[in-house]
């Protein structure tokens, strides 16, 4: 999605569910994937993704097209949720799908979270190399985790990472360099 087009969508999305849905469809896989690759935990990734989009929706009126794209803004919210998850022993959600469902909300399609999760869990287990390195990464300080994940897992360009983290490109580069050095030390 082109930036200016996205800007228009974001503007409309504040009132029009259709426009928000377009943004959601575009970014759900990215945000969920990012959360999963940061945490290697499907349930947590689900919660983080839900939380990220609810916060985005709630805060959409505050989103102003200034120095940061909508995509980076979402990543930022997600990154914060992830950091909170790592910081707290217990990740506290303010919204959850379960609660919404308890309030009488009905999903449109049959949704069996259990079986979907079990299946996905099996798939995740097959990524042994990834899980091995991910386990090492999560022991690094959050700033290193972020930059490694964004660069190598999310394949973000330096300028995008700089935007997401709110740092200069040069800073991101040296941070990345240090992060890889730190990771190397964990061997």
């Amino acid at each position, binding site marked *: 999605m082109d930036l200016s087009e996205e800007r*228009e969508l974001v503007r409309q999305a504040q009132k029009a569910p259709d426009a928000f849905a377009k943004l959601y469809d575009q970014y759900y896989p990215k945000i969920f994937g990012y959360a999963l690759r940061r945490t290697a935990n499907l349930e947590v990734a689900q919660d983080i993704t839900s939380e990220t989009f609810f916060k985005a929706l709630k805060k959409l009126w505050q989103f102003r097209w200034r120095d940061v794209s909508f995509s980076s803004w979402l990543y930022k919210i997600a990154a914060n949720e992830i950091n909170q998850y790592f910081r707290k022993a217990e990740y506290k959600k303010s919204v959850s799908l379960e609660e919404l469902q308890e309030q009488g909300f009905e999903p449109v399609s049959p949704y069996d979270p259990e079986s979907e999760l079990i299946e996905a869990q099996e798939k995740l287990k097959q990524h042994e190399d990834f899980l091995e390195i991910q386990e090492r990464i999560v022991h690094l300080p959050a700033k290193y985790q972020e930059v490694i994940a964004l660069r190598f897992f999310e394949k973000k360009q330096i300028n995008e990472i700089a935007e997401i983290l*709110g740092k200069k490109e040069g800073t991101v580069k040296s941070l990345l360099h240090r992060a890889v050095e730190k990771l190397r030390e964990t061997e």
Partner: protein
Amino acid sequence: MKYEDLIKKLENLKTPEIELPGHRRALRVALLKSGYFKTARRFRERPIPNWAKLLAPITAAVLLIAVVGLLAVPTFMPLGAGEINKFSSYEQLQEFVKTNAGYRQFFWGFSKGGDVDLFSGSAEALLPAPSKTNYSVTNIQVAGVDEADIVKTDGEYIYLASGNRTIIVRAYPPKQAQILSEIELEGAVTGIFINGDKLVVLEEETPYYPYYDVRWGTEDRTYIPYRAPQTYVKVYDVSDRENPQLRRELSADGQYVSSRMIGDYAYVVVNEPVYEEDNEVNLPKICSGGNKTEIPATDIWYSDVADYYYMYTTIIAVNTQNDAQEPTYETMLLGASSNLYVSPDNIYLTFPVWGTGVGDFERTSIHRIQIQGDQMEYAASGEVPGMVLNQFSMDEYDGYFRVATTTHTETSWNNVYILNMSLNVTGSLTDLAQGETIYSARFMGERGYLVTFRQVDPLFVIDLSDPNNPRELGYLKVTGYSDYLHPYDETHLIGIGKETTEEGEFAWYQGVKISLFDVRNPQEVDKEVIGHRGSDSPVLRDHKAFLFDKFRNLMVIPILEAKVDASQYPEGVPEWAYGEPVWQGAYVFNISLDQGIQLKGKITHIENISDPKQAYQYFWSPFAVTRSLYIEDILYTLSDAKIKMNSLETLAYINEVELPYSTWTPYEHVPGETRPEEPPAGVEPGSEEPQK
């Protein structure tokens, strides 16, 4: 494992691409039915601290952008409207900041420096004088007011900034083109000026912010340990191009915002956040000739800008020719600078002003600093409704300042204000194009042009001859929009933007569109659309990437061309289909009123698209052409990886110079590391054919 091997391992690691379709659907429905759409105004009741909590671990710079508008409305220390003063003492400054800032914690952050501007007031000044020089100069806004860029030429040499290097290249004659010298610095080179034998290099060093330390409690006053970035102004004597000599070095704490050069003087604008440490408010510092001095509070101007946070904006004036002349500076306590416009006599800084409703940016404060050589004086401040897009939204002409703004509330509308030199509004034209937003603006003497857009592109023509009564002369509606407007002559404009197709309430962007407008009786005389959806050009964001010379009928635009593979869509290509990048390089056009816009040919630096070093991600490739210029009859195209020389007449390949460049990898950050890979051999350079 070796560092390089770990990088490779990380790059090639197979990562889980798992989806949970059930969760995805359920969340979608939950979001869309959540009721947030019905209560768009509920935010007014929301408790404030949540945001701070939400954004706690994000760095200061980000914080500024995101937190903007989320805090409680501050209580202002009343001053008369437009009143400006210097502080009488440090205590007064401290009191002012603490009373007005309205924050419980300190936030600091920087607006990005990129958005900096220029353009001359008078229409005559806009039109290229029958060139006395036989080489092109940076595409600037205002005649006589140079803007720093990553590439400069003086007709014989090319000076270019690349990462932390400044490179001097003998460019003419092309057969003898070669690198003469390189200046390597610690920080990033943000721009350069060349003025005779003096090269001005603007450098910025950014420290790392240890934001991970931050705890953000609602009651606690937690501080992010702040370390100021440093902005350096370095002046080199390059009379020996092979051996540049550093003649003067100045630095200031703070972030580089923008710069201009008028005559012998370079003006550099630096922002430094105001912060508090041990209950003391900091003062800005500048360093010249090795002596660091704190600017005393009694030298600092302030006005009645009430803000959530403050910045010191310091303008430093440096005589580029006389190394012995001490630099002068002028410091103001203002908000976060958003845009800058400079005429030959005045610097205008604009800042968004917080509205009374949380989250509104409905007004812009404008500050005029009069300049003459090294004399600077904060002369006036004023305010207009709406937000300013960029430097081209502003202009000074015949003793009046004109500004185009967009107001966003429930809907949006657009305005043009004319202000006198005291920055009082003398005339206005408001409520243009409701529901639309300004995409580009340009002032040419007694006319102003605005492109607003939502679904189609109205180009408004505005008569500014009466400063008390600006009026709309007419408008043109065509598909697409322009992000940049460039005067062709007094009655014609070139617009660069995107083509669009409409679908219901929405418009899909298509290829890059170049239009030639006749603004007398507004009509689109000619247009050219390049590529499909996904195509792009740096000109859409940076006017300095644009090369135009009316007398040579020449227009050169760097383009990333994307094409949609129609075979992927057997039932017809939908409007939203994205093209894949297939080409990047410079489009060279002939442009004239008789013939319109005609493609003359294309020049690329990506000669081997199967080589990932060259074509990887196209746009970010070091082989992506970012600038072009000419000297005599030679067209020079520049990427990070090379300078290529072609005949301006036939576009035939003549020569090229390879440049040392940095890629994204962390390797390049290791001092002493040079180009990681030799450019791939194989493809014969200059294989591009002129197109008919």
